[in-house]
């Protein structure tokens, strides 16, 4: 009996710790599981890829240490840097210019409360990744911020900073499809088996 109490206690505390350290909602939206279909899954991923490689997404997922700007993905003026936490360095912190919302007007700083790059220990690079590389990277919890597939869907479908891409402020082009359409393709990609495109896919 004593043993049982101890074990229950340990399980309970363990559960508490797990819950406490989750960054995403404890119960991420579940997603339907469809019959495995590598062709359909890859097809869905290819349209997800087009969105992720569009400027509004890729500019904050650069291969280097500076964010990018514009539809030509040039290095951010002032050569600002990622910094350890992804929020910039010294006098060049993102939120020194980027407010909690877009500043109105052409070429004014866009904004969001979470504005920033992925942190230096989880760089989540999109720039330069092939479809296959990006699919595998997104699915790997060691490279995707520790997310399960359900959390990945949740992030793409609901995260506020991701959602900025569809409200980017004056003069910025939108990703190639709406957010609900994008989220639907992410779900489909995963529901059909989360297949990665072949190495030849572009």
């Amino acid at each position, binding site marked *: 009996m004593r043993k049982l109490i101890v074990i229950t206690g340990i399980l309970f505390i363990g559960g508490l710790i797990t819950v406490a350290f989750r960054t995403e909602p404890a119960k991420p939206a579940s997603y339907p599981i469809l019959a495995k279909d590598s062709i359909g899954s890859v097809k869905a991923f290819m349209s997800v890829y087009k969105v992720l490689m569009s400027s509004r997404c890729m500019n904050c997922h650069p291969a280097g240490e500076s964010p990018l700007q514009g539809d030509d993905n040039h290095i951010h003026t002032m050569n600002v840097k990622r910094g350890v936490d992804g929020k910039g360095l*010294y006098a060049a912190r993102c939120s*020194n*210019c980027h407010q909690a919302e877009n500043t109105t007007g052409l070429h004014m*700083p866009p904004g969001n409360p979470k504005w920033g790059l992925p942190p230096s220990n989880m760089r989540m690079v999109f720039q330069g990744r092939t479809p296959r590389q990006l699919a595998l990277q997104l699915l790997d919890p060691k490279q995707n911020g520790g997310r399960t597939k359900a959390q990945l869907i949740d992030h793409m479908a609901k995260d506020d900073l991701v959602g900025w891409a569809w409200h980017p402020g004056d003069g910025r082009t939108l990703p190639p499809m709406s957010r609900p359409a994008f989220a639907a393709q992410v779900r489909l990609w995963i529901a059909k088996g989360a297949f990665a495109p072949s190495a030849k896919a572009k």
Partner: protein
Amino acid sequence: MITITVNGQRHDINGDPNMPLLWAIRDIIGLTGTKYGCGAAQCGACTVHLNGEAVRSCITKISRADGQHVVTIEGLSANNDHPLQQAWNEVNVPQCGYCQSGQLMSAAVLLRENPNPTDQDIDDAMSGNICRCGTYQRIRAAIHKAADMQREGAKI
């Protein structure tokens, strides 16, 4: 009503919450050391400290500063004796001077966070502060000098 503490003094400001902090500082509070260059977060002339961070006051709304602490160039030190100000004097950094209060406020954040900055650290911190007169080399030299002075001061 928006309440902002500027250089330790409380100010109640009756105005549009969307008013740029720079306008409140210059036109309402009357501290004109902070300059207006571009109004678009591109030049750094308007840099002040908001809770210690080097924000650009031309695009920071006063609503963001409500209840917060702002320090302007006038409040960087009590007697114009911040190591950066002393070094600026010794090296004769300014030419026209227009960008310099912004340069100093940015450099102050750099020195606080990194007491021994390399040239690269200085570039990383200061590239967003534009100087039309091109005083960049002297700014770099003065930051190194101020870092030395700060270290010497810490030894005493």
